[in-house]
């Protein structure tokens, strides 16, 4: 039984690690500030959630698992607010986003 639990937990931890790595690769590969924030949001959603889930399975039914769940909720509520604040601050300070349709006059703006 503990074998199965370890397997599921390791699966979650490895998958979470994979998505954190993908986010890091995205931070390097993507071209500008705003697109890089999208890579960061992969880390803070799937990366963080899977790692926390893996740790919660390791912790079993205990207060530690409850605290991990609280950390998850904290990230769930705070990360969009922080991301929004960062993006808005950048736009207000005049960081121009790199847009796909800059050449042709876009009707969206």
């Amino acid at each position, binding site marked *: 039984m503990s074998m199965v639990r370890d397997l599921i937990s390791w699966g979650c931890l490895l998958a979470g690690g994979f998505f954190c790595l*993908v986010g890091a690769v995205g931070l390097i590969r*993507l071209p500008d500030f705003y697109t890089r924030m999208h890579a960061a949001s992969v880390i803070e959603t799937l990366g963080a959630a899977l790692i926390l889930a893996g740790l919660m399975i390791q912790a079993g039914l205990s207060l530690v698992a409850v605290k991990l769940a609280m950390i998850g909720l904290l990230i769930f509520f705070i990360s969009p607010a922080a991301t929004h604040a960062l*993006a808005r601050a950048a736009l207000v300070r005049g960081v121009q986003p790199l847009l796909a349709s800059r050449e042709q006059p876009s009707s969206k*703006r």
Partner: protein
Amino acid sequence: MLHASSVLVFLYGFWLLLSGYFSAFLLVAGAGCALAVMLFSRRMGIIDREGHPIHLSRRALFSYWPWLAVEIVKSAWDVTRRILHPRMPISPTLARFKPSQRTDIGLVVHANSITLTPGTITVEIGRGEFLVHALSEEGAASLAGSEMDRRVTDMEAGK
């Protein structure tokens, strides 16, 4: 009164779960702290339907959050694919659109949900207008009148 007592219960539960010690002194101290914080917040006037939206909790927990979790996984996978693809098929787009929520809390839930799903970030929230930065054109095009918009409006209306 309902909101005040619910805040008290939540604060005390939070204290108990964080502390993990159940001696008589700590139980009483926790109750005292929870009561003090509740009274302070009431004096500040932040205990109301907006500061402590318990009327949304049932629909949020059992209907909206599970749906949102699936959406987050789907869009995170989409962003992952775009990052790892050799040619990186991204088309960053800024899009303005009108959300259909009427209350402030509905607008906040919608904006936060957009930011929380990878690939879209709410950059500005104006009067009935969102400015969203999307990693791909498809992501930007599917914002106005999306299922997310409809679901948040339903939740806010109590359906």
